[in-house]
């Protein structure tokens, strides 16, 4: 484990965007994360793969401080976000997360969903926030939906709005939690295309996914989670072609048998 961590200072190019050290998390007596060490460099795209219950979603929720952790430290840039007395609201502003179930605000129009946090958190005026939101929606082909309520949109459109909503806060790190798992198969592609576009634009992303083909395309690095640990990590070609660990091999065999790769 690295030493001297936690010394606050300007982020040098070598400082990773995200660094996790010895992260442990249990729900009651059930250990979910059992010592996660992981670093994500600026502009890097890291995909987390693994069976349901292996801890992928919990890991993402811990990084966004939506869960209290039991042990370990998490750094964003050079700042330890798990330090005691940290202002969690300030930290979350810079870390976007998109959930499997979209979680759009059903009582707000699409443009209001996107503009809410810029208005209330960053103090933008309504007109500024909404015109910025409209510009973002336009960029992702959603301008014609801006005045609709979320329940008028397809699942794919809702998930794209959720991504735009996270982007409106200009996060330095984007967490994607199985964002296509709740979608009908024909709607998956439009969401994955958006994420590909973000990767091409240099967005730093940590992505939990069941879409192995997508992970192979987009990831700079793939981590295989098993029972709360990162069992194996490496370049996608290496992980998918010649996994070293027996468990990784068995997981990928099952995925191939299910036609997901």
């Amino acid at each position, binding site marked *: 484990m690295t030493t001297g961590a936690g010394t606050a200072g300007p982020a040098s190019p070598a400082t990773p965007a995200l660094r996790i050290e010895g992260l442990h998390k249990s729900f009651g007596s059930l250990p979910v994360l059992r010592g996660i060490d992981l670093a994500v460099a600026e502009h890097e795209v890291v995909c987390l793969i693994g069976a349901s219950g292996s801890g992928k979603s919990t890991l993402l929720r811990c990084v966004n401080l*939506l869960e209290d952790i039991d042990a370990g430290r998490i750094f964003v840039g050079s700042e330890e976000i798990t330090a005691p007395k940290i202002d969690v609201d300030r930290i*979350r502003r810079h870390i976007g997360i998109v959930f499997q179930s979209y979680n759009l605000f059903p009582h707000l129009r699409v443009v209001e969903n996107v503009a809410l946090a810029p208005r209330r*958190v960053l103090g933008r005026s309504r007109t500024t926030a909404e015109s910025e939101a409209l510009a973002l929606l336009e960029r992702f082909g959603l301008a014609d939906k801006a005045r609709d309520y979320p329940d008028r949109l397809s699942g794919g459109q809702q998930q794209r709005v959720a991504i735009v909503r996270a982007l409106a806060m200009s996060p330095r790190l984007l967490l994607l939690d199985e964002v296509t798992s709740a979608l009908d198969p024909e709607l998956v592609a439009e969401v994955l295309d958006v994420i590909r576009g973000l990767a091409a634009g240099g967005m730093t992303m940590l992505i939990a996914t069941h879409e192995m083909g997508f992970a192979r395309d987009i990831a700079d690095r793939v981590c295989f989670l098993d029972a709360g640990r990162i069992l194996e990590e490496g370049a996608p070609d290496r992980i998918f072609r010649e996994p070293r660990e027996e468990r990784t091999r068995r997981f990928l065999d099952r995925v191939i048998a299910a036609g997901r790769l």
Partner: protein
Amino acid sequence: MSLGPGPSDVDLLTGGLPGGPVRFRRRRRFSGRSSIVAAVSTVVFFGLLAAAITGAPGWAQVQRAFLNPTFFWGSLPDVVGHFWVNVQLFLVAEVLILGLGLVLAVLRSLPGPVLFPIRLLATFYVDLFRAIPGVLVIYMLGFGIPGLGIAGIPVDPFLWAVVALTLLYSAYVSEVYRAGIESIHPSQEAAARSLGLTRAQALRFVVLPQAVRRVIPPLLNDFIGLQKDTVLVSFVGVVDIFRTAQIKQAATFNFSPYLAVALVFILMTFPLARVVDWLVARDRRRASAAAR
């Protein structure tokens, strides 16, 4: 119209599209027959009821005491005139109840062990004012507080009636709000917090707007109750619609003015009850449309 089973069965066997159209036609035919049955049974039921009442040995006296057209129409203008007191009471109390009820509900929903005393106090308040009969609270405040004789404390019974109704109904209304708050899925708050909103902002901009919208029908239901309970102010000396009728009854020994009061409340409440039903039906339609 054919009511026999034969044609329907043939329809069912040969009907073109599966399910829908045939079943719909069948249901409509049955509902045509149902309404005839409903009409006949209604006429028979109320006919028998009317016969039983008007045939009763004391009917003549009761009719004179309660259904005297002279006293009824004679009292109506004055009764309606004093209804304004109840309307004022209702409007002022309703605004205060909506505010205080929301504050209580939010206090009871606060998380964390440090705030336990606040939750405890709010819970005690809600339990207490749901336990005491409303007329006792009105008596205690309306007579008790002015009776203390403290200089500077207002003695207007109308004011204390407003306070009493607010205390009583805010306890009920806070429970309605709380049910609404708890019906909002935690993922909504998580989404708001993940964007950097504080807990208070998430409550204010994400949870409460959805919760309040969801509980509008039960809130209106509570306000139907409040409308009627405004007559309790007559117990502490406010001359409202009920007290007016009481005065007239005492002067004439005839109860017909009370029927005028009942008529006024019926005319007020029926439209509100229909609005509640309409809102509930609309919410159900929306929920099924969203789940589609």
